[in-house]
């Protein structure tokens, strides 16, 4: 039996998709437009704005900064987040419950406030180099994702497996690496991807922490937009989207997106 779907529902669903995908299509179109201003539908087709994005040294520099920040910040965050998630899953009954929420605080505090606080306390207070401050900020920003996603993975893990390893003569620290880690691999990868993308696209924390000589790609994009309103902005956006899609697709192919949904 085929279920009849009400035409209004079809229409509504189409509107939702239009709403979600429309901006992406517009940006993609605008990035290809052969005009010196953002135009949609594109007038003429060219790839020169993509070329331009790589030719402007500020974009090249900030791309490197953004990718290295996203990579290092995520790794730093995982280095803190995995042990934290492990401790909270393993000693659930012995630890106070608010501990779990502490690690989610960066999500609850508006990012603007977080960025401002970091600027006040770390950047100006301790006078740390800009890159270091950015790294700390990004690690903090993505920490909730790391703790939550790895934690979700650990919640499914039967800790008697770890005890079995110990009973067979494996010291506990080694059991973590040989038995626990391989079995939460999916969660760790998913956490890495989520955190990486979040860090790569972040504006609100970075805007407080960038400074002379050091900036991130999204911040550079804003700066560029204030002076030139040309399709380079669109092409850089498309590149950022492209990286995100490729990473997501890789995860989907290797693990399935269910890891992210969990």
């Amino acid at each position, binding site marked *: 039996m085929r279920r009849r779907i009400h035409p209004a529902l079809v229409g509504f669903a189409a509107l939702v998709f239009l709403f979600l995908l429309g901006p992406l299509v517009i940006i993609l179109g605008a990035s290809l437009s052969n005009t010196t201003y953002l135009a949609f539908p594109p007038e003429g087709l060219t790839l020169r704005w993509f070329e331009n994005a790589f030719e402007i040294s500020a974009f090249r520099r900030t791309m490197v900064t953004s990718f290295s920040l996203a990579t290092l910040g995520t790794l730093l965050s995982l280095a803190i987040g995995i042990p934290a998630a492990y401790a909270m899953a393993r000693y659930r009954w012995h630890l106070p419950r608010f501990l779990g929420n502490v690690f989610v605080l960066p999500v609850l505090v508006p990012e603007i406030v977080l960025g401002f606080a970091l600027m006040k306390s770390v950047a100006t207070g301790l006078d740390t180099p800009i890159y270091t401050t950015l790294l700390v900020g990004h690690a903090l920003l993505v920490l909730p994702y790391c703790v939550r996603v790895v934690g979700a993975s650990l919640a499914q893990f*039967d800790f*008697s497996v770890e005890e079995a390893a110990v009973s067979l*003569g494996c010291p506990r620290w080694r059991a973590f690496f040989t*038995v626990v880690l*391989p079995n939460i691999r999916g969660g760790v990868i998913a956490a890495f991807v989520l955190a990486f993308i979040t860090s790569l696209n972040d504006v609100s924390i970075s805007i407080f922490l960038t400074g002379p000589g050091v900036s991130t790609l999204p911040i550079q994009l804003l700066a560029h937009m204030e002076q030139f309103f040309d399709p380079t902005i669109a092409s850089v956006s498309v590149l950022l989207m492209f990286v995100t899609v490729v990473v997501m697709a890789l995860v989907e192919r290797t693990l399935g997106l269910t890891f992210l949904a969990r």
Partner: protein
Amino acid sequence: MTVSLTLDGVSASYGKTRVLEDLSLEVGAGELVSLLGASGCGKTTTLRLVAGFLAPDAGRIRLGDRDLTRLPAHARDIGLVFQTYALFPHLTVLDNVGFGLKQRGLGRAARRAKAGEMVERVGLSGFADRYPANLSGGQRQRVALARALVIDPPLLMFDEPLSNLDAKLRVDMRVEIRRLQRANGTTALYVTHDQEEAFSISDRVAIMDRGRIMQLDAPEVLYSRPANAFVADFVGFDTLLPMRAVAEAGDAVRVRMEGGATLDLPRSDWTVPAQDFLFAARADGLLVAREGAGIPARLGLRTYLGRAYQYRCETPAGELIANGPLSQPMEPGETAVLIPNPEQCCLLPAET
């Protein structure tokens, strides 16, 4: 090499809650002892203390002449079988079994040979390259067993190993466990809440309650001669009547039960342990008859058990359950006597 396991005055607590109170236990070399009790009685805590996952507040744990009390868990050399099997999901059957050998520094070839041999012994040849996710519950438990046995431990411990299996498989697996344990002559400690499982598999069973061992004996002794009211109730004595010896009646002792009824217990059949005592019986041990020396009763609801009729009986001491022969069905409302069979009842010292 078979050694004995000794727990000497062991106490343990979770936070402020005492879960084990001055527990002493000896499992002889090559013996299989079960810890039996309801959840929260301390049986799993005892096992975890021996395994080294918990530290005792007081007392010593020894295995042969080794003192385990302060030894880290990975250095205790104990084979453990878990309720959830706890197989390594990311390793094949062969690598699961070989894990303990790897920790002992065995080379790859030797490891695979020895693990392969053990996989075969538990009847899983052909499954060596499978992952745990692709095995049935029974097969997983065999892998867990092989993994614990292959390191040739002086002590094997089982934590409710069969409770995730269906009824038929449970019976097969417990026979298998017993067979392998006997063949290796390994000392074993077995934790379960299933009385039939504990009784069928063990040399001796410790019945536990609230962190103490209530009685440690061979299953036959526990079943027919419980030492106290808790154990009697646990092994199915559903009638527990407080009684008091009140007079001599020739070669019998006259006892009075609650409600005032009296009963003469011939000295040749019964040994009254004290003036105040508990009379314990199963339904089988109280025979419903029209007349004789017994507890006066009025019959209530009758049910058919196949081998006998079972009656709810109103007596001066309250409602009792007793069985009557199939040859003489009696009707609700009739008056009868319940005659205790000395072979199937026991007299216990009253609780203090």
